[in-house]
């Protein structure tokens, strides 16, 4: 088998010589035959003739022999490809257009493929990552909101759950903590993790060890640091292991160094501490008995034989059972997700949309090239007729056309792929939707293979119609004479059909673009209810200076007073623990005093905002009734609160809420709070707020148990008229540092910047769709231009006749324009139909607009029609300027 192949190749490589030798042999044979005849007395030329008769046709013999030396159809393909290359070189302009069109189409596809591959297809960098799941505890009425898991609940889950193993916990808040190691404090993100978390994610330490299971329960102050932090803060100190550092005012011993690529499931962590020390580190030692300290997220591995569905069922039943014994949450249940799905939940829909869009763009490009090929095939009519007359079969011709178009596909594809790999990392880098750090765009064989397939398929698709049309029976004589062959009209008809398809596709892409842009604009314009031009500062109140309650109170007052007195400041306020939009993380349970329930879970949840006097003014939120907080509002005689309007109207409809009492549920007994003011509802958790909006309760910050964690605070500074937030950034930061040198300041930015990530997804889609929309339109219009031009060229004689019998230039121009308009119109209508039919598929990705928005649909249709008219302008003008005499003489 193998030797046979080798022999074939050997013959193939020697075929020139074999041919020569065969010629020699056959000549010799003929000579001998002739001699034979001569010997029997036949004269020379008769002998020759008879010899030749006996021999047969030498040419046929040669042909038949050649078959043994050739690689069969492969040779034909090679020949076709070389011929195709020659054709491309002969018309560089045409070739350039075709290549660029395909390069753009295939390039766009490859770019998105490579991102999709790196993000969604490639397995996560954890062992057996397809068996990893995230287990979220939620309340059934708000299934999007992750409630978290507490340590006792974790223990119960580990004990009773059988469909998941290695139930690992990690902390679910992301505030940076202050690491004191050497001169400068570093702000680092920390995860407090159970021992099997590290095992679950398959990480091995570069040096030292990982955590042990005992450290889950017993508070041992050990720490793991990332290699990156080791370099940055410790200069790769070889003696780091065993040394101590202070994190969040607690002393830890460093026991291991983890490789730099590992950043935990939060993707931002640089230090890890064991679960058991969480309470000590953040000042609540009793957390591991408190079922309500739900600080942890849970990741686990599916047990062998379990599926996500069965695990979900079991865990949900378990949660419900536990809730009966320890009622705290209302109807708790569990949402189990594969880890990959969880990590990419924000990206998946957008990427798939992009994939669809690039697919459409490629289709349009393909149609364009098909048209180009058709035009070129029509001009090769003479060549085709001659070939057919010489005996080429239709199949052979079709094969050749396809070889040419596949060649263009491959060349365009190669260029496109190069472009894509240059562009894709840039896309990911600037993508506002942050990809996890392990997503790396590489030149992966799978993507290359996919692109190769796409290039070949595109070539075939683009070439099939021209191949079929052009290889139809040609009448030899008229074609050889140069007259138009009879197949031209059907070829043109096909070309027109293709252009209509292109315009329809462009319409669909543009409608989607319009929707993406509308969604983004709608989101941007959505009013949050408070000012976005304020300066915000996030701070950490840790360190020796803040160890005492009174010290913190003093600092708070002085900070507010001094910052307020800076020039250009109109109002100042402080909020704890988090600034918008992160204020979704703090909440408490309340009810109206007169109708207070008994069980905790029947209390309503509301967001807790601990604010200082001046905060609401700084935000620009006017009080609807009552008064704001003052510094004199302290714990006695009565605790006070401000509530949002929705709450007030719900509890005391038609009456004033000021003076009423609400109660806050606490274990030690419900706490009554007097309502002293009502504020309007604001969207302080963001404009998207997929979770159900809970109402807001504002409490004086000085009432808050100061040493309660987390010890973060946010300052809001409203600039006076004529100043901007950025003007105030430097003076405010300096003033704060003056007041307390070991205050950790970070994220000094405007309120608008704090909210920009939420619009990220929409901005990305809008920008991408704009790019693709423009691409689609340009390609479609170039196609239209080509077809109309060709039509004008072929109707030259007809135009001449029309002018001769009295048509004015304007009539000719209108005729051409109308033809173009007709094509565009059909395309637009077809595109509208497809848009309407497929609109529901994108409904989930929009904001503030329905996919059927008539303004969008009709607006795009109008726009496309106008652009089509523009594309036809030049051919129309050319047609109207035709000299009738030369037109009539043209063929």
């Amino acid at each position, binding site marked *: 088998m193998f030797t*046979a192949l080798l022999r074939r190749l050997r013959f193939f490589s020697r075929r020139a010589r074999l041919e020569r030798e065969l010629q*020699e*042999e*056959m000549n010799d044979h003929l000579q001998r035959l002739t001699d034979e005849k001569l010997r029997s007395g036949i004269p020379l030329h008769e002998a020759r003739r008879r010899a030749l008769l*006996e021999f047969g046709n030498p040419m046929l013999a040669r042909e038949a*022999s050649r078959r043994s030396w050739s690689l069969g159809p492969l040779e034909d393909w090679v020949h076709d490809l070389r011929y195709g290359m020659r054709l491309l070189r002969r018309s560089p302009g045409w070739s350039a257009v075709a290549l660029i069109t395909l390069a753009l189409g295939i390039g766009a596809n490859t770019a998105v493929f490579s991102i999709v591959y790196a993000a969604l297809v490639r397995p996560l960098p954890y062992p057996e990552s397809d068996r990893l799941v995230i287990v979220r505890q939620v309340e059934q009425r708000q299934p999007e909101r992750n409630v978290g898991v507490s340590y006792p609940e974790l223990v119960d889950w580990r004990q009773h759950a059988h469909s998941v193993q290695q139930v690992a916990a990690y902390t679910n808040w992301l505030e940076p903590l202050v690491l004191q190691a050497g001169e400068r404090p570093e702000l680092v993100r920390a995860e407090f993790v159970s021992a099997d978390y590290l095992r679950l994610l398959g990480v091995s330490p570069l040096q030292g060890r990982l955590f042990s299971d005992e450290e889950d329960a017993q508070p041992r102050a050990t720490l793991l640091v990332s290699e990156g932090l080791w370099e940055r803060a410790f200069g790769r100190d070889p003696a780091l292991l065993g040394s101590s550092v202070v994190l969040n005012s607690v002393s830890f011993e460093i026991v291991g160094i983890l490789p730099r690529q590992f950043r935990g499931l939060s993707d931002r962590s640089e230090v890890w501490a064991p679960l058991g020390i969480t309470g000590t580190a953040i000042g609540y030692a009793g957390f591991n008995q408190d079922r309500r300290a739900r600080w942890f997220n849970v990741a686990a591995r599916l047990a062998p034989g379990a599926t996500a569905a069965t695990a979900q069922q079991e865990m949900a039943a378990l949660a419900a059972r536990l809730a009966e014994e320890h009622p705290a949450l209302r109807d708790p249940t569990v949402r189990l997700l594969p880890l990959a799905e969880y990590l990419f939940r924000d990206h998946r829909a957008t990427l798939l949309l992009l994939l669809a869009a690039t697919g459409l763009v490629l289709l349009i490009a393909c149609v364009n090239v098909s048209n180009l090929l058709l035009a070129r095939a029509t001009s090769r009519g003479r060549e085709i007729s001659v070939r057919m007359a010489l005996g080429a079969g239709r199949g052979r011709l079709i094969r050749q056309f396809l070889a040419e178009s596949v060649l263009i596909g491959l060349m365009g594809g190669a260029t496109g792929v190069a472009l894509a790999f240059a562009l894709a990392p840039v896309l990911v880098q600037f993508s506002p939707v942050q990809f996890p750090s392990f997503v790396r765009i590489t030149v992966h064989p799978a993507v290359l293979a996919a692109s190769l397939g796409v290039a070949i398929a595109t070539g075939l698709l683009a070439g099939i119609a021209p191949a079929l049309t052009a290889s139809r029976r040609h009448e030899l004589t008229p074609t050889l004479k140069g007259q138009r062959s009879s197949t031209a009209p059907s070829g043109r008809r096909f070309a027109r059909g293709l252009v209509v398809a292109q315009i329809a596709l462009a319409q669909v892409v543009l409608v989607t673009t319009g929707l993406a842009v509308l969604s983004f604009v709608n989101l941007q314009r959505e009013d949050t209810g408070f000012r976005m031009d304020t300066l915000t500062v996030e701070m950490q109140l840790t360190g020796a200076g803040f160890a005492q309650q009174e010290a913190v109170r003093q600092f708070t007052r002085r900070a507010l007073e001094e910052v307020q007195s800076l020039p250009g400041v109109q109002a100042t306020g402080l909020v704890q623990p988090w600034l918008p939009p992160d204020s979704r993380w703090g909440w408490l349970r309340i009810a109206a005093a007169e109708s207070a329930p008994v069980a905790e879970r029947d209390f309503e949840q509301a967001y807790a905002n601990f604010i200082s006097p001046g905060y609401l003014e700084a935000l620009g939120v006017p009080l609807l009734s009552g008064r704001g907080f003052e510094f004199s509002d302290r714990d006695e005689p009565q605790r006070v609160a401000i509530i949002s309007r929705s709450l007030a109207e719900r509890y005391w409809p038609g009456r004033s809420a000021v003076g009423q009492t609400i109660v806050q549920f606490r274990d030690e007994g419900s706490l009554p709070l007097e309502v002293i003011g009502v504020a309007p509802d604001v969207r302080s958790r963001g404009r998207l707020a997929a979770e159900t909006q809970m109402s807001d309760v504002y409490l004086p910050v000085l009432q808050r148990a100061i040493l309660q964690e987390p010890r973060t605070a946010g300052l809001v500074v409203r600039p006076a008229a004529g100043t901007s937030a950025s003007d105030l950034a430097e003076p405010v930061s300096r003033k704060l540092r003056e007041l307390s040198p070991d205050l950790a300041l970070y994220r000094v930015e405007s309120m608008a910047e704090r909210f920009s990530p939420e619009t990220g997804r929409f901005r990305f889609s809008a920008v991408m769709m704009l790019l693709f929309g423009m691409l689609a339109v340009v390609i479609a219009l170039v196609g239209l231009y080509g077809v109309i031009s060709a039509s004008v060229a072929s109707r030259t004689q007809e135009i001449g006749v029309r002018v001769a019998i009295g048509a004015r230039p304007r009539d000719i121009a209108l005729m051409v324009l109308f033809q173009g308009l007709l094509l565009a119109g059909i395309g637009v209508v077809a595109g509208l139909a497809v848009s309407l039919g497929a609109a529901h598929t994108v409904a989930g990705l929009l904001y503030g607009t329905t996919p059927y928005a008539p303004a969008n649909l009709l607006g795009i249709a109008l726009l496309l029609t106008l652009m089509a008219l523009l594309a036809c302008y030049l051919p129309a003008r050319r047609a109207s300027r035709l000299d009738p005499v030369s037109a009539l003489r043209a063929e």
Partner: protein
Amino acid sequence: MRRRQPSHHPPSKDELLPGTLDMLVLHTLRRRELHGYGIAQRIRELSAEVLHIEEGSLYPALQRLQLRGWVTSEWRQSKLNRRARYYRLTPAGRKQLGLEVSRFQRLVEAMARVLRPLED
């Protein structure tokens, strides 16, 4: 449309059964090495002039046989100092010849049985 050129040879000479040319060539080379002309002559002789193949069609057959590895060739000086290409069977070719001959004989016997007048 494609039109095949039909081969023109004198209809009076008996045509070979398809596929048997290769077998004949292999057989001819069984005991000696011959050049192309020699093979044609030999077949003519052995068949007592019944089988006249188109001598030109030998050459494609020879190429095929070489490609299959059943025959090899080399250029030699013949008598009369002429350069000629001599063909020779390979061991694989010898085996193939055996196979084809036995197959052909089986076929002929079967046909003879079919065409034999029925005996009472």
